[in-house]
């Protein structure tokens, strides 16, 4: 990866899909999600907190995810996000769109 830095614009349009995929595997709270994005990209992409939360809030408004406060006894309480059935459908649609776009781009670039 030396010298290369993923253009955040390239990824930006897919953050919703990335978040939905992570939530498919179980409910998660904010920092947990940002750590998984970091490790899942082998450190190549750092999701800014502001970007992540703006996506989470939007996904929630659209009904793709729901949230609830956890009952942590120690430290600060955490808000967990859970994918809804609508969110699962959105994920599949987005993934199909991406596969399609990827084939076209591979031919074009």
């Amino acid at each position, binding site marked *: 990866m030396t010298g290369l830095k993923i253009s955040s614009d390239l990824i930006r349009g897919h953050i919703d899909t990335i978040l939905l995929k992570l939530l498919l595997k179980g409910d998660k*709270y*904010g*920092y947990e999600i*940002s750590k998984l994005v970091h490790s899942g990209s082998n450190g190549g992409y*750092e999701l*800014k*907190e*502001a*970007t992540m*939360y*703006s*996506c989470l*809030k*939007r996904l929630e*408004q659209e009904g793709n995810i729901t949230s609830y406060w956890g009952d942590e006894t120690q*430290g*600060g*309480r*955490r*808000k967990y996000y859970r994918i809804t059935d609508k969110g699962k459908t959105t994920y599949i649609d987005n993934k199909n769109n991406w596969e399609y776009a990827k084939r076209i781009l591979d031919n074009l670039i």
Partner: protein
Amino acid sequence: MNEKLKKYLDGIFAPYDDLKAVQELKEELFNDLQEKLNDLKNEGYDEDTAYNTTINSIGEVSEIIESIHTKTCELQQMVGMDFSKSNLPNSDFKAVKVLDGKFNYSNLQGSDFSHSDLSNSSFKCSNLNHVKFDGTNLTDAKIEKSSLKGASFKNSELKGTIFKYSDLSGVCFDHQTLHGTNFDYSGLKGTTFRHAVLRNVSFKTDVKKAIFDGATMDKLTYALLKGYRAKLDNVTVI
């Protein structure tokens, strides 16, 4: 270090602090960042590097603010908004902030302004029948030439509120504290001020049918009411 982080977040969120959604988000963000800070320190980074890396990972806060219920934001920050000549019956204005707002010549019958901040707002010639102002801050608001039948003002803040030329018949101001409130030329037939505390309240109007049982008032208010022949048998003067 926690304090430093908290102060930093307080600083960047200060302009939006009134919104409940923003307060919750700040809490989420603070807990995330604190955890990140601890992780970085455990990885062996020194305090300053860990702190700076953490702060840099926030990104553009305006991005999140924009995403929070755009509608809520609009509703909650209507400073100086003009709703004049609007037909808005039964509207939900609960817990909104409309400082210096204008609701002149509007139909707001049955609308709910509970727990809102309407300081300095003006309601001229409006239909405010059955409007709820429960817990509303109406400091220095001007409600003139309006109809307020069946309106409710439980626990509202009425300091300096002007009700000139309005119809307040049957409205209940029991147990309220009225300071500098002005009821000149208003209809107060059956309006009740039971156990209310009145200071410097102006009543240049017919108060013969208003009810002041158990009210407490200063000498000035008492003298004025007496001049207008209010029934003041059961009143305490302070």
